[in-house]
């Protein structure tokens, strides 16, 4: 069992399909790496199955079935879907992350301290990044205005709230300041999903929003 599991209410949002895509990616990675989380999601999906099964036997009408049957001719029964293959250079990336890794993507050094790959996950409300920290190195002390979801994918890190290793999930509400430092061993790689601050409006917004959206102010 993971020492830092995702909270149940987030797993419920995930299984019910109500979580926006960016935090859903964080939960999907946690689930891919943590058997306990996966069992919890299996149970929740089974609740969904039971709720569907419990619905009344209303008819859709024979016409609906006929129309759908007519469409089947153009739809192939596909071979079993295999999980996405590991991507060279990104062997640490669990299958749900692989579709987000585009060709040519590479680490970018930020402030001379850590490496980042910005991921393009649809939805304006979140910033999604992969961060890589060398052992003993940390992120500058920072504070978030919204929620922050972190999943550790390689190595480990430690901050004021504890030590996190592969598969561990952290969720931080805004006001806490924290300073994660990578543990000894291989570099620490984590997926970070940060809820963007509210976009400023008015004449100053145009000036400040680019900075806000980059998380600089």
């Amino acid at each position, binding site marked *: 069992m993971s020492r830092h599991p995702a909270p149940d209410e987030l797993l419920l949002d995930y299984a019910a*399909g109500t979580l926006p895509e960016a935090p859903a990616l964080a939960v999907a990675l946690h689930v891919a790496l943590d058997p306990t989380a996966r069992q919890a999601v299996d149970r929740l999906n089974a609740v969904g199955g039971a*709720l569907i*099964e419990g619905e009344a*036997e209303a008819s859709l009408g024979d016409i609906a079935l006929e129309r759908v049957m007519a469409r089947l001719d153009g739809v192939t029964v596909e*071979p*079993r*879907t295999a999980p996405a293959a590991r991507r060279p250079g990104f062997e640490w990336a669990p299958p749900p992350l692989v579709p987000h890794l585009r060709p040519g993507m590479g680490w970018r050094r930020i402030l001379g301290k850590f490496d980042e790959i910005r991921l393009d996950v649809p939805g304006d409300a979140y910033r999604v990044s992969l961060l890589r920290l060398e052992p003993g190195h940390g992120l500058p002390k920072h504070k978030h205005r919204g929620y922050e979801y972190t999943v550790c994918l390689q190595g480990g890190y430690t901050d004021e709230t504890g030590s996190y290793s592969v598969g561990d999930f952290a969720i931080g509400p805004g006001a806490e300041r924290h300073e994660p430092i990578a543990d000894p061993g291989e570099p620490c790689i984590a997926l970070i999903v940060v809820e963007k601050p509210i976009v400023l409006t008015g004449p100053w917004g145009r000036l400040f929003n680019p900075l806000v959206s980059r998380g600089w102010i």
Partner: protein
Amino acid sequence: MLSADEAADLIEAIAARQDRAAFASLFRHFAPRVKAFIMRGGTDAEAAQEVAQEALIMVWRKAASFDRSRASAATWIYTIARNKRIDLLRRSARPIDTEDWLVVYAPEGEEADKSVLAGQTYTRVKELLGGLSEDQLVVIRKAFFEDKTHTVIAEELKLPLGTVKSRIRLALGRLREALEKDES
């Protein structure tokens, strides 16, 4: 009625030999249920019917990926219908690649990890849901039926977020305990 085993047999028949009669039986059983399920969230009949039809066509396409040792037919079809709801209703402006969501990502090295729920019948899970308190049940139903996050549910019920979280945790804890007891 269709038993869990019969439903699983039908999906496997589609995978093995593109069995159209098997598909028709599955459709008759599940399409109306998926439609009714989707309508509970306030979706109109036409859109709900589209979700149901598209979900069942996805069942045909992906039949070979169904694994009866991991999930019951109803559970698998639930996950497909959920993704179709996301595609067609909530994010209609920007369809997502449902297939990415469909693959069940098993933790690596967990070959032996088969779901205890695969063999569970609808009756058993329904029984367990029946064992939850009304407070807990309301939250679970709102999440699944009404397509709402726990944060939105708290706002709607005018409850502190912490209260909703603890209801969810209690409900899931009870399900876990009961199912682990079944297993042992």
